[in-house]
């Protein structure tokens, strides 16, 4: 080997692989649509008709579009939070429970501050901050269990999801039960003056929309532009080498969990203040799990998360229309599931192809 420096070039094969990459991803989406259509055919329904109905359900009227946006807000915030843990190589399956704890702390704050002399706006802000704190605390648990107890964060998170739900149910039927009779429909509703108001004639609160956009940008900048983001990425790729390079890995693991929990808590608080208005047993409303799917599809690229989240939110809302075709509204779940499976499979195929080169 000669010791003369030779300015290396990016091999042509790399550029080719970007196209291969794109092609594989598109074919994954087509495969997901194909398989969902097969399911529809088995259910004796017209696939094209069903897709059309989903589109009508999501975008048929302006108000429907705002409903999609209202569902996009918690989903995109949850996804953005999960990008921190994903980048650090952590599987924060406990997201759903962290959202639940955000909701619990929010309601708890409202109960505490209900009769104070503070302005209602102030109370709402404090309640949302309390929700954020709840999410952070609950998210630090799987982190601490992983670091000090050697418990894989997937198992820790899974267990804590159950615990969070149980705590919510206990509060609903116990200490926080409605005056008179406890009901599984949730605790007493918060006073209308505390709720985040909708834009006139729509189903969406401007405040939550702005918060969501700010958080999406925050995550993109943090992960793509800062030393913090790069260190998190290094840990996610190889925590041993990152440690030897001088990155305090334990601290960054906890930071990733804490930040993800912050986002989960805000998600829970927004659900309480703009949608549920009370603590319900299913306080996370599935946004934690759906966020995991979106984050997987986005594949570490924060730029894509608002779009994929919007697509998923539209599927979820558009679905309702399927009832009128006599179909179950879980169809969007089928499509979402297939999408994730095929994209993950495509990723595996791509890696194999690249290896061969």
């Amino acid at each position: 080997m000669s010791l003369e420096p030779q300015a290396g070039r990016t091999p042509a094969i790399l550029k080719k692989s970007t196209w291969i990459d794109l092609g594989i991803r598109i074919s994954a989406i087509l495969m997901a649509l194909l398989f969902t259509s097969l399911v529809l055919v088995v259910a004796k329904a017209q696939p094209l008709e069903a897709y059309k109905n989903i589109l009508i359900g999501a975008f048929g009227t302006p108000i429907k579009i705002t409903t999609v946006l209202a569902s996009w807000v918690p989903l995109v915030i949850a996804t953005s939070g999960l990008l921190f843990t994903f980048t650090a190589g952590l599987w924060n399956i406990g997201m759903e429970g962290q959202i639940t704890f955000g909701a619990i702390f929010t309601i708890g704050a409202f109960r505490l501050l209900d009769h104070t002399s503070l302005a209602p706006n102030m109370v709402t802000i404090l309640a949302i901050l309390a929700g954020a704190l709840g999410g952070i605390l609950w998210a630090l648990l799987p982190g601490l269990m992983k670091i000090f107890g050697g418990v894989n964060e997937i198992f820790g998170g899974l267990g804590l999801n159950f615990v969070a739900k149980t705590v919510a149910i206990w509060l609903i039927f116990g200490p926080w039960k409605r005056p008179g009779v406890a009901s599984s429909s949730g605790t007493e509703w918060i006073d209308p003056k505390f709720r985040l108001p909708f834009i006139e004639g729509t189903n969406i609160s401007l405040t939550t929309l702005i918060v969501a956009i700010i958080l999406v940008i925050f995550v993109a900048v943090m992960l793509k532009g800062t030393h913090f983001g790069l260190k998190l990425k290094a840990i996610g790729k190889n925590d041993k080498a990152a440690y030897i390079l001088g990155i305090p890995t334990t601290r960054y693991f906890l930071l990733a969990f804490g930040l993800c929990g912050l986002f989960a808590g805000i998600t829970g608080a927004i659900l309480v203040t703009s949608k549920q208005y009370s603590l319900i047993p299913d306080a996370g409303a599935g946004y934690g799990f759906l966020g995991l799917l979106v984050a997987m599809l986005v594949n570490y690229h924060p730029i894509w998360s608002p779009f994929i989240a919007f697509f998923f939110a539209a599927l979820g809302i558009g679905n309702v229309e399927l009832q009128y075709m006599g179909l179950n509204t879980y169809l969007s779940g089928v499509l979402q599931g297939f999408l994730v499976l095929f994209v993950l499979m495509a990723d595996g195929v791509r890696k194999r192809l690249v290896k061969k080169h």
Partner: protein
Amino acid sequence: MKILSGFYQAESGEILLDDKAVKISSPEDAVELGIGMLHQDPLDFPPMKVIDNFLLGRPGGLFPNKKEVEKEIIRLSKEFDFQIKPDTFVETLTVGERQQLEILRLLWLGVKVLILDEPTTGISANQKEKLFTTLVKLASQGLTVIFVSHKLEEVEGLCNHVAVLRQGKLVGEVEPPYDTDRFVNMMFGKSIEVGSKTSSKQSVCSLKLENIGLEDYRLRMRDINLELNCGEVIGLAGMEGSGQRLFLRMLTGLMRPVNGKILIDGKDFAGKSYATFKKAGIAYLPAARLEEGLITGLTLTEHFILSEEHRELFVDQKSAMDLTEQRIREFYIKGTPVSRIEQLSGGNQQRALLALLRNKLSLILLEHPTRGLDIESAIWIWSKMKERCKEGTSIVFTSSDLDEIIQYSDRILVFFGGLVSKPIDANTTTVEELGQLIGGKGW
């Protein structure tokens, strides 16, 4: 040998076994054809018992006949005078014993060709002797043994036929009687000349070890004392796994001594964290480049950003690129700032690792700095290191290459089963003297 044992597939050509062309597309195929491979790091299941390791590799059978297998293990073990018992857990065995276990297992599976990859690296002299006796016995029973090694002495003592490979090419085949010089010539293309030695040793003492004790699940080391001078190079010699790695990792703060003092500029660092050692100007370059040193998936530029300390929040891409380009030139790395680290060759990865070292360091710890590199890269790396020494940086390194240790060290410590020799002057010692100590003689 990975092609023969089915781990990789050949892109062209064919394999003839007993004059028949065979297709080997997985390790399972290879074993079925009677080809078994003993890897450098044993491929076994440490948390399981010996008998389970035996049963795992065997095809078929929902309910294996444990009794019969147990008898077989004991019989085979006796035949070769090994001390392997069916119900011990693999993790309690030494590397040498795990090798023996793999050999027994492969024989039991009925292999007729046994491939061994550098089998003598992690084992004691006794175990090596036993291994060689076994191999000779197997060969006399009609098995084919393919023995991969870079240790000439072993090859000369053991093999009936030698094939020399250099950089992916078959350079030549040799029959006994062997001529060592000829081997060296074939392996390196020219005989190595030991360049003139310059020592940058200065008298100021920067690091002092007092009665250090180290322990892990295998080794117990006691009362290690050393005074390291600025600009000095200390080579750690010994068979792999004799305590050098513990010693090196103790100096980085990754391994805490059970007792004793690590004095750096008069302050005791024993029990302090890796980060504290790093702050004191101690850098560690691990042998496992892609596992511990570099981060697969990140670009060269990203590595350089990570290696420097930054107080600001945002990454300054421009200056990072500039720094990377400058280092690429300075260290002759064949790659671009945006090349991902795994796209570089091994030698270039090693140079990148060196380029990541910060400017002012008091001590650099190197683990097998030139392993797997060609001779020119190795010389280049050492010239870079010697420049550091002139600035007063001390170097401690391990190597399994004695010539490298004698050539580049000022003083040498020999490790044997957890024992550490007194520092030996590299200018006056010989390969024979070190070799004896490494083999456990003269302690």
